C-alpha cells in the first residue's frame, strides 16, 4: 500500500493504580495514514486480544473532539503533535514510516493512573461541583433577549465555554496546574450577567477546591494554552486572577 506506514508504538503499561508501570513496544504493519490514532490503538488491541494478551486501556468516547474523554501524551505533546485538536482527531498521516511513537498517560499527582493510559480525572468534576454552575430559582423562564449582552462578552464567554475539560492543560503544565481549566470555567460565567451574581463565591470556591485537590501553582509558562485542543486563551487565567484577587479584597 502506498499510503500505509509501519510504526512502533512505545506504550506505557500499568496494571493498576498501585502497580509499577513501564513501557512496552509494539510493532504495527501497514497502517493506512488516514486511520485515526485511536483506531490504530483499536487495531493493536484486536491483535493483542487475538494473541490472548491484555488489551491496552485508554479513554475515549465521542471520537469527534467534543467530549473531552480522550487523553494520551503522544511524543511529548498532550493529544499528540497536532494543534487545536484532540487525540481522536489525530490521524496517522502526522507520523512517518518507521517512526517510534511514545504514548504516555497524563502525568499529574491529581490525575492518578487507573490502568495503562487511563487516568482518574474526577478532580475536574469536583472543581466543577464546587461552583462551576449558575444557580437560579426555577419558575417562568425569562425571554432569551430580556438580558442584553454585548457581542464581545458573548464571544469571549463562548470561547471560554468551549473547554471540554480533558485535562491537557494539567498534563502539559510542568507544575501540574489546573489554572487554564478553572479559568475557562470561571470566565464563561464571569463574562455574562447571569453568572456575575455568584461570581465572587464561585471563583473562591473553585480555586479553593483546585488547591485542595493538589494541583500546582501557575507560573505562566503558557504550555497549557499552547497545547489546549480547544485553544483556550491564556488571558482567561488573568481574568481568573483578577476575579479572585477582587473577591478576596472585597471580603
Amino acid at each position, binding site marked *: 500500500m502506498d499510503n500505509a506506514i509501519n510504526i512502533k508504538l512505545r506504550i506505557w503499561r500499568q496494571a493498576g493504580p498501585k502497580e509499577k508501570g513501564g513501557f512496552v513496544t509494539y510493532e504495527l504493519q501497514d497502517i493506512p495514514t488516514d486511520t485515526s490514532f485511536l483506531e490504530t490503538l483499536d487495531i493493536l488491541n484486536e491483535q493483542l486480544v487475538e494473541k490472548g494478551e491484555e488489551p491496552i486501556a485508554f479513554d475515549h468516547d465521542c471520537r469527534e473532539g467534543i467530549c473531552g474523554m480522550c487523553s494520551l501524551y503522544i511524543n511529548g505533546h498532550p493529544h499528540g503533535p497536532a494543534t487545536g485538536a484532540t487525540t481522536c482527531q489525530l490521524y496517522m498521516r502526522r507520523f512517518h514510516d518507521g517512526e517510534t511513537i511514545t504514548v504516555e498517560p497524563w502525568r499529574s499527582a491529581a490525575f492518578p493512573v487507573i490502568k495503562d493510559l487511563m487516568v482518574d480525572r474526577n478532580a475536574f468534576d469536583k472543581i466543577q461541583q464546587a461552583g462551576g454552575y449558575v444557580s437560579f430559582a426555577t419558575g417562568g423562564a425569562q425571554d432569551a433577549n430580556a438580558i442584553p449582552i454585548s457581542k464581545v462578552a458573548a464571544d469571549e464567554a463562548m470561547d471560554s465555554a468551549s473547554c471540554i475539560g480533558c485535562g491537557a492543560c494539567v498534563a502539559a503544565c510542568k507544575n501540574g496546574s489546573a489554572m487554564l481549566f478553572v479559568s475557562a470555567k470561571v470566565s464563561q460565567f464571569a463574562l455574562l450577567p447571569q453568572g456575575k451574581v455568584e461570581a465572587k463565591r464561585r471563583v473562591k470556591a473553585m480555586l479553593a477546591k483546585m488547591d485542595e485537590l493538589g494541583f500546582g501553582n501557575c507560573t505562566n509558562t503558557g504550555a497549557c494554552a499552547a497545547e489546549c485542543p480547544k485553544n483556550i486563551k*491564556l488571558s482567561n487565567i488573568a481574568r481568573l486572577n483578577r476575579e479572585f484577587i477582587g473577591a478576596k479584597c472585597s471580603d
Partner: protein
Amino acid sequence: MWLTNSSVGRKVVMSVTGLFLILFLTFHALMNLVGIINLKWYDAVCEFLGANWYAVLGTLILAAGFALHIIFAFWLTWQNRKARGNDAYSVTKRPKTVEWASQNMLVLGLIVLCFLVLHLFQFWAKMQVPELMGKTVLAGSHYLGAVFSHIWVVPVYLIGFCAIWFHITHGFWSAFQTLGTTNDKWIERFKCIGWWWATIVMLMFAAEVIYFAWYFDAFKF
C-alpha cells in the same frame, strides 16, 4: 490569609516582590550610571546611602523583598514538584510559544542568588555594614576600584546579568498576568515592555561594569 494559603495569593506575593525588585534594579543601574559621569558624584551617592536611617530602612525593605521572593520561590517550586507527581514523562517537547526562561525560573534565580551573595560580599559587607558598626569607611569609588581592577569580575558579572535578563523577560509580564492586569492585547504588550526593560537595564549594568573595569585598569596586563 489568602496570600499564603491560596495558589493565586502566593503568586501575588511573587509578582509584587518581583516587580519591586525590578524597580530596585532600575534605580541601581541609574545610580551606577552616576559613577560613569563623575566618580565624585558617585561618592556622594554612596555617602547619602550610608548608615542613615532612611538608607537602613530602605535596605531592610529591600532585604524583605528579596527574602519573600526567594522563600516563596522555593515553596512554590516544592509544591509544584509535588503536584507534578513522581513519574516524569519519557518524552517532553517545549511548544514554540513557551519561553525557555519561563520553565527555568528557579535555576535562573539560583544563579542570580549566587551572584547576589558575591556582590553583597564585595560591596555591602565593606560599605554599609562596617559603617553601621561604627567604623569609618572610605569613599564609594575606592571599593569600586578594589573590585573592578580584577579581570575575572567582568565575566562573572556578565553571567549574572544574563541570568537576570532571562529571569526578568519572563518575570515582568508574568507578574502582570498574575495580578490580573492583562488581556489578549496586554499580554503581548507587557512581554514587549518587559523585554525592552530588561534589555535596557542589563545593558546599562554591562556598560557600567566594562567601563569601571577599563577605568580601574583591569584590562591592562
